[in-house]
């Protein structure tokens, strides 16, 4: 990956903050929902990067720990103004959430004992369950491609359900499993290549 296109003028940190705050306000949901808005702001309006590079940042944002939206903001901020830029862009991205959620949570606290609010949230929980099922269905379509991947999904569920293993441990074990799978395939390939050579 090459560096971001050299901007003629050095981007001010304030511009970086405001731009990402704007993206944060206009994004509902994060992840890929953010891509078109980010593209408009960062590629078209400010010319900080190209569309192709943006897709690279997304690929990396998905393949690194943390939330995709935050990872991508950090990446673009870093490419634009170094470490300080990374921090400022990320703060810009989370700033609207901080303001909006805090305000909303304070208001909701006042009404939490209201009978209609309680009923509404009982109904909302049903919708949340259904939304989680759709998230799972989407992930199954994308991520379960063969028997080993299906086993990992089931094992992750059962380890929590039956043994109370924490999600952190499950992620660590899965990384280890992925590394074992990777290096065992490499070894197998090398072995078969060696045999071919001997023949």
């Amino acid at each position, binding site marked *: *990956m090459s560096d971001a296109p050299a901007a003629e003028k050095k981007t001010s940190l304030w511009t970086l903050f405001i731009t990402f705050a704007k993206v944060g*306000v206009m994004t*509902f*949901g994060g*992840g890929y929902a953010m891509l078109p808005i980010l593209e408009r702001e960062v590629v078209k309006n400010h010319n900080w990067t190209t569309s192709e590079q943006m897709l*690279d940042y997304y690929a*990396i944002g*998905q*393949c*690194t*720990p*943390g*939330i*995709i939206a*935050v*990872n991508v903001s*950090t990446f673009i901020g870093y*490419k634009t103004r170094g470490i300080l830029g*990374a921090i400022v862009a*990320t703060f810009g*991205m*989370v700033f609207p*959430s901080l303001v*909006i*959620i*805090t305000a909303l*949570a*304070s208001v*909701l606290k006042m009404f939490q004992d209201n009978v209609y609010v309680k*009923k*509404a*949230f009982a*109904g*909302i*929980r*049903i*919708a*949340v*369950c*259904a*939304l*989680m*099922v*759709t998230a*799972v269905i989407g992930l199954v379509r994308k991520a*379960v*491609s063969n028997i080993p*991947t*299906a086993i*990992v*999904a089931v094992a*992750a*569920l059962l380890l*929590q359900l039956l043994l109370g293993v924490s*999600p*952190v441990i*499950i992620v660590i074990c*899965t990384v280890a499993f*992925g590394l074992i*799978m990777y290096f065992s395939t490499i070894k197998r390939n090398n072995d078969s290549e060696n045999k071919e050579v001997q023949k």
Partner: protein
Amino acid sequence: MILLQLFWEFFKTGLFAIGGGMATVPFLFDISARTGWFTTAELANMIAISESTPGPIGVNMATYVGFETAGILGSVIATLGLVAPSIIIIVIIAKLLDAFAEKPVVKTVFKYLRPAVIGLLLFALWQLLPLTFLGADNNLLWAPVIAFAVLLFCMLKWKKVHPIFWIGAGAIFGIIAL
């Protein structure tokens, strides 16, 4: 002290939650079970509000949980904890590794991490079920079950409709029928 704990819990979440959308949710259920800072019912409400307000869901959740646990300072600290690993890791990767996502070893590891997220999400969902579908003496409530089936069917049929709409529909159903 609670602020330090909040930062640490969300730092771990930021470090181990992978992907977008509901990736942080399983970790928040885990925090709820271990610390008792908030209940699973509150967590369900927070998911609904995080989906219905601007901003990435994970960031909204961190802000919300932080606020419920320790006020405004809590919301700032939790969010900082969540994004700190991203900043550290992305800066290192941007500096040192070219084409990180293209490396075969990274691809293989993530091929298995994504299905693991399915298991994590299913367990989070499992914890929500009694709260949503069982009555006071653990009897199955039919009204929520039917509403769930209808909502899920509609969500899968009209995929483009924003979650806010379904959350609103759930709220109206709750006020009228529950």
